[in-house]
């Protein structure tokens, strides 16, 4: 894959804060990701340098909506991470796994919820 098809998005420069926590900032990053895809970029590197921490709300807005258009496998191949902590990656994975279930396997999602609500 040539370098022209790869773009490095520095999250801190895009959302203008070290805290990737607010849903509005997630929306801003999402727009940048969509723009990159529309420009023909095959791989997007989300560079979390200088980001202190993140929330599930942020990823619900920044990356989970991609699952309406692409499969989790495609997203995993096209979106990579750099300079990111283990705890931030864990949040991302939790959000994407749940959102994938919700959008792409609604029956299984419904069953998972029902099982969850039966506990205790």
């Amino acid at each position, binding site marked *: 894959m040539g370098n022209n098809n790869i773009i490095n998005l520095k999250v801190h420069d895009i959302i203008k804060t070290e805290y990737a926590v607010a849903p509005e900032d997630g929306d801003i990053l999402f727009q940048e990701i969509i723009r990159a895809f529309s420009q023909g970029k095959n791989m997007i590197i989300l560079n979390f340098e200088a980001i202190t921490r993140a929330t599930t709300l942020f990823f619900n807005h920044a990356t989970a909506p991609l699952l309406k258009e692409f499969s989790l496998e495609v997203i995993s191949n096209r979106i*990579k991470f750099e300079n990111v902590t*283990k705890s931030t990656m864990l*949040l991302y994975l939790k959000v994407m796994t749940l959102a994938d279930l919700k959008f792409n396997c609604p029956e299984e999602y419904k069953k998972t919820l029902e099982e*969850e609500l039966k506990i205790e």
Partner: protein
Amino acid sequence: MLNFLKSIGTKTFHFPRSISNNFLGFRHLINFYDFAKDIYDSKISVNLSGTKWFDANLCAVLGAIFIDLKLRNNKITLVASLENVVIDSFKKNHFLKYFGLDEAIDTYNTTIKFKVFSKEERTLFQEYLDKEFLPKISNDISMSDEFQAVLASNLDEVYQNARTHGNSDKIVVCGQWYPKSTIVKLTVVDLGVTIFENVRRLHPDKTPSEAIEWSTRCGTTTKSCTEPGGLGLYNLKEFICKNSGKMHIVSNCGYWGISPNKSKNISLNSFDKSFNGTIVNLEFNLKDANVYFTSEEENALLSYVDNLLFSSS
């Protein structure tokens, strides 16, 4: 006639001997909220002369009610002796300072200051965590970077929930650090849309406490079926359980609480009066904060991380 009478004279509310982080403590605070909620253009006397203990983090609830009262042009007077320890703690954590009254030096450096945020402030709460909350506790104990990040991220979620789901103009926060027992408490309050109001759009059959319980489950969200969500409160609950901490949520007349042990013992209850907002009350046990343990499920997810990291080779 009744409405006219509500706008004249001084109205007095007496707080009881003790206000603590438990169902009874919240009930007393909700009684005060109910007392105050329809009063306007009046003088309110808040009598603390018989109060010997007031959990400092619960200033967030008191403060939210005071702000609400002042919006309706009420004047508030606190009644207590000068030596009252409760008033002393209110001075140290800057609760009184916010309302234009005295402050005092926090000689033990254990208060986590009373603070009011506006809905528009996306990240000021995070700065508060980094400059006020985390430094207080990390002075006395060793916290791993990972534990600290997860703790702060979970608190970030609570704040962002109050901004988005609660849609509240003001979000009020206060905490207290207890270095001897290595416990830190933090309370986040909003007077916006309650959990019950949000949940009943989807589940009109649920009571206020059932609505809170529903909202803490994995994957449950009041967002539409085309929007992702449903992890914030669940993650926080899991963290508290792992941590052997405590968590209480009060919204409308619903109460939800989780016990300080690892058995996820949840209690639901109802108040006879309603709080038109949400209180999230947290207690973290920092005895073993030098390491963060991931669960089996989390370890399974983390096994995918290497595939997601960019490698230039």
